[in-house]
């Protein structure tokens, strides 16, 4: 470097730390053009009226009864699958880490969690139709459990459709979503469960604690940020899902993504800007979820540091 007496000024500029960021330019450019720009466009659209002037009127769509309903249903579905998938996934994850499930079960479940977390969209909807639809495998199986009743007639009480169940409903969507939610929970929470140090359990036992007390006082509190964070992930995952609901119910169950989809096609409202407001609302929900998730992750890692 000492040889460069010719243009020391230029060299110094080259060495400036900012220059290094130039190497990331292609990446940032791509992200900007195809992600940031469209999103910004959408958000400005949410606050613009038909003439292009700034307005907050588009936000009125959020108080539109249809829209409100879509948000409520979406929030319900997301919350339910996050909770159900989260708890189910947690119990299964516990079973394959500390719970002492047999080895073959452990490997099978781990492998399948990786697969099933990626099974979604249209094939999943078809699977559930084939399983729990009117002619589905399980439906037929349940219909076939018959006894002869008191009066000699055949009684087949287990047909779910006789009891008001239908797959093409919010509950159908919940069932279908759970299929990929609980494996996602297993994948997400297993590292945290494995991070529970054996010594904590031994130290607690050494102090006289029963396994129940250990879980109540140490393990669950330590795991709680990770569990809540994972459930938030599940929530966001369900909230943003489109394909499964579309293929399963054709859009008859009014979820926010479905509503936005209709906006894109120009089906419903004459003012596209209101569609942008819908999309904007969705992003707000997801951002809140992510921020909460990040804060919880930070708490979790703080405690298990050292």
């Amino acid at each position, binding site marked *: 470097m000492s040889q460069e007496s010719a243009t020391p000024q230029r060299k110094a500029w080259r060495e400036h730390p900012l220059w290094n960021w130039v190497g990331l330019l292609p990446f940032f450019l791509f992200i900007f053009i195809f992600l940031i720009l469209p999103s910004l466009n959408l958000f400005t659209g949410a606050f613009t009226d038909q003439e292009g002037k700034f307005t907050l009127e588009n936000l009125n769509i959020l108080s539109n009864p249809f829209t409100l309903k879509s948000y409520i249903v979406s929030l319900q579905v997301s919350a339910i699958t996050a909770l159900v998938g989260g708890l189910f996934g947690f119990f299964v994850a516990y079973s394959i880490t500390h719970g002492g499930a047999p080895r073959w079960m452990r490997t099978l479940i781990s492998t399948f969690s990786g697969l099933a977390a*990626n099974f979604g969209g249209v094939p999943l909807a078809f699977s559930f139709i084939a399983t729990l639809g009117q002619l589905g495998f399980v439906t037929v199986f349940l219909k076939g459990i018959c006894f002869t009743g008191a009066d000699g007639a055949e009684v087949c009480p287990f047909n779910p459709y006789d009891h008001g169940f239908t797959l093409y409903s919010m509950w159908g969507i919940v069932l279908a979503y759970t299929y990929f939610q609980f494996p996602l929970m297993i994948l997400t929470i297993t590292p945290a469960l494995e991070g529970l140090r054996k010594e904590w359990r031994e130290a607690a036992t050494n102090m006289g604690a029963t396994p129940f007390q250990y879980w109540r006082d140490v393990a669950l509190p330590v795991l709680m940020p990770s569990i809540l964070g994972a459930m938030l992930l599940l929530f966001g995952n369900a909230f943003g899902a489109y394909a499964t609901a579309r293929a399963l119910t054709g859009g008859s169950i009014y979820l926010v993504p479905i509503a936005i989809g209709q906006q894109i096609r120009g089906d419903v409202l004459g003012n596209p800007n209101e569609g942008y407001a819908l999309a904007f609302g969705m992003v707000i929900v997801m951002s809140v979820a992510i921020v909460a998730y990040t804060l919880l992750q930070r708490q979790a890692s703080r405690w298990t540091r050292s």
Partner: protein
Amino acid sequence: MSDKRFNFFAIFWGIAALLYFFVPLYGTFDFSLRMERGVLGFKAYELVFADPRFWQGFRYSITMAVITIIFSVSIFVPAVYWMYLKVPQARPVMDVITILPFIIPGIVLVFGLIRTFSRPPLQLTLRPWSTDILMVAGYIIISMPYMFRAIDVGMRAIDVRTLTEAAQSLGSSWFQVLKDVIIPNLRIAILSGSLIAFATVMGELILADFLVRPALGPYMVRIGLTKAYEPAALAIISYSLTWFSLGLLQYFSSRSERQKQQVIEE
């Protein structure tokens, strides 16, 4: 110790999980075989494979997937490499960027893409081939979290700085370092990201549907509206594809682990 109690709990949930995994799969498979009344046969599959629109969708999606993977790797690997080597301060920014596809779900992204690129000056939606560019870009964005994470993990495992300095001291240019040193050492990571990207693109619906391109996703939805048994067959085909790709990944990554072990043992 008193683990009997726990074992029962564990076994119960393990079985519950396995049931939830397999009953729908089995049910779908069973249903797909029942096209011909009273007989278990592959008629539904025959019809699917005979449908030219299936192949059109399949070909289109595979092509898109491959293009996506190539461009994805070309954009992300240098970026991650550069970040590790020169700009570690960029990590928080990168972390935020890779989380964006989660905050901006597919449906919102496609909405934004349409609004931005369906009118001048950036009108890409006019022609099929230009719309395809939009598709690839969208696919890259959607698969970004997985691809990025896979490359990141892989890059972390190799000492990027030292390898680069060694290569440069022997005369390599940047491009050569990437081509001859970095990428070969990232094979498994790239494979891992690519296979997940592949599965994602093959099953993707939103982009293809709204940008009206002949991918596998929209084809499946159309079949689902009119047919009964073919959808189940399609689902099984789709699952097999995913299972196959992930199996391939398992095979290659465990093979590379075994190779590394052999070297160590020698």
